[in-house]
């Protein structure tokens, strides 16, 4: 069966991806470049989350930035409180610099009450709390959103519209709560992640490895998840929710579970992105960013986890390269838009589909040759 060839090909791509991602620092010692790759790997993780919800569950989430952004802000709050430069006030109870600028004259310089709501920051003084919340809060939000949407049997384009509206709502809330989120400017001048006394400078090879190992683990875990029986049942709900229901499956619970897993991955990606980029801004909640994730998954192949990851990394690499020339920088959005339309129309399975078709053709070609040589050996006279 050619199925075996696909399985082998698939496995080869996974192994190649992991070897390259983990081996890259051995070949490159430019830390700035590695830092850039780390960011693209984070986007690759977002591609995986998108393929899981869009490709496998049939849930087109146009608000994935919500979970990414919330994850990013949670860890950024903790890192802000670790930042030597933004906490330097000579006070016993220092507060982030922007809170001072936003405070009423005479307000006590203490996290408890310098600005309304600043007490929310108190538990984030423990770095682990921020890291925990970066995944826990997206999970809780996804459970609430998912339970509401899927129990009501909302599907298709309506899910897209609702999630789109929710990410915009979140953007508004984060900008509006300027005294505790620094509004449009976001959280900048962050400290470094510190684990066991080691400070993870974003320009360190170790920081690259945190991201690289995380991406590989997430990739393999989601891969396992979709190959389980639950993953198969999830795909069946995508094809025909009613049939799955009449086979005895509570479709909503499968959708909620995988929607939440996808959100958790996005939150984790937000966490990692803050560690390598040292800022969190409301631009994470922009529509353009969430839609970009859809484009990455579409280009790479939404029904392939690794395809979507590679799509994300590829597009971002190209974008970074062309944006160095001014003309292309302007045209880039147009190019990516046209590319998206063309791929959806003519290549719905993306690069992964293309790779599979090529493999199928190679297998067929190999068989043809075998058949030819078999023929030749049977009729040596000819």
């Amino acid at each position, binding site marked *: 069966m050619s199925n075996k060839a696909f399985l082998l090909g698939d496995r080869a791509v996974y192994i190649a991806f992991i070897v390259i991602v983990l081996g890259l620092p051995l070949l490159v010692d430019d830390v700035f470049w590695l830092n850039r790759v780390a960011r693209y790997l984070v986007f690759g993780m977002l591609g995986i989350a998108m393929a899981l919800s869009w490709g496998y569950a049939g849930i087109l989430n146009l608000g994935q930035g919500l979970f990414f952004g919330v994850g990013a802000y949670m860890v950024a709050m903790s890192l802000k409180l670790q930042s030597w430069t933004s906490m330097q006030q000579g006070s016993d109870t220092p507060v982030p610099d922007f809170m001072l600028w936003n405070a009423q004259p005479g307000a006590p310089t203490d996290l408890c009450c310098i600005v309304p709501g600043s007490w929310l920051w108190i538990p984030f003084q423990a770095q682990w709390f921020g890291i925990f919340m970066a995944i826990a809060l997206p999970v809780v939000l996804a459970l609430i959103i998912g339970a509401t949407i899927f129990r009501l049997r909302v599907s298709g384009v309506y899910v897209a519209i609702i999630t789109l509206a929710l990410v915009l709502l979140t953007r508004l809330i984060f900008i509006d709560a300027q005294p505790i989120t620094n509004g449009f400017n976001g959280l900048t001048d962050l400290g470094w992640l510190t684990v066991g006394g080691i400070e993870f400078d974003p320009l360190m090879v170790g920081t690259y490895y945190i991201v690289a190992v995380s991406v590989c683990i997430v990739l393999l875990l989601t891969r396992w998840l979709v190959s*389980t*029986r*639950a993953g198969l*049942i999830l795909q069946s709900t995508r094809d*025909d929710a009613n*049939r799955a229901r009449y*086979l*005895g499956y509570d479709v909503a*619970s*499968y959708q909620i579970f995988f929607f939440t897993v996808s959100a958790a991955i996005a939150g984790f990606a937000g966490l990692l992105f803050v560690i390598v980029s040292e800022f969190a801004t409301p631009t994470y909640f922009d529509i353009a960013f969430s839609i970009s994730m859809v484009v990455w998954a579409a280009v790479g192949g939404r029904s392939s986890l690794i395809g979507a990851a590679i799509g994300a990394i590829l597009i971002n690499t190209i974008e970074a390269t062309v944006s160095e020339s001014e003309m292309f920088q302007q045209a880039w959005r147009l190019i990516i838009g046209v590319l998206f339309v063309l791929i959806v129309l003519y290549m719905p399975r993306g690069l992964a589909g293309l790779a599979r078709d090529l493999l199928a053709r190679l297998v067929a070609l190999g068989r043809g040759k075998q058949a030819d040589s078999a023929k030749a050996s049977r009729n040596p006279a000819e």
Partner: protein
Amino acid sequence: MKAALTIDALEVNFGGFKAVDGMTSVIDDGELRVILGPNGAGKTTLMDLVSGKTASTGGKVHLFGRDITNWPEHEIARAGIGRKFQIPSIFRELSVLQNLEVAVSQEPRVFRNLRLGIPTADRKRIDEVIDLTGLEPVLETVAGDLSHGQMQWLELGMLITQQSRVILLDEPTAGMTQGETSKTADIIMRLKGSHTIIVVEHDMAFVRKIAEKVTVMHMGKLLAEGPIKSIEADPAVREAYLGTGGLH
């Protein structure tokens, strides 16, 4: 004989219009029952009510003595009712084998299904159904690429792997060629006895081939019930079909 499905004065009111109006019928365990009736008699609505797709506004449905009236669809399915739709309803992007693998699992919960592979007992049941439906040559084919007849057999096969004790079939031969229809009849005949089967069908040649006891519905009510021969001779049935050319 033990009753498999008891439909007791079942009724649904769509804003004044009663599509099913006090329908009563008892289907025995292992029986093959055909439901006939002119267009709009309420046959498909009756199936919707029994399988949970539509909520009834009156009456009861009992499955092996258990009241399943207006349960959610997936719970009715777990209780033992399998339904085949008029338009083939299968998982088009999954392979035939994967379709059967989805149907075979007796474990509905998400977390319990976070495991790889199919248990041996389930694998055996899948093999039996593959034998019964003759889908062996297309196991790796994506279900969306099957012929119309194969899709119908796959859906039927899924209900059998699901281990439904009562199977509802809504026009199983619609759009089939003669050869396909006869194969479908064979599959249904082989299920008789081990499963309780309720068939809604228009194709009288097919009905005569498989039917024992027939229920005729008209205007949402029970019109006649009995062996096919006496039903065909029943003047009330002829009256109901008048203008549509009678039973043919």
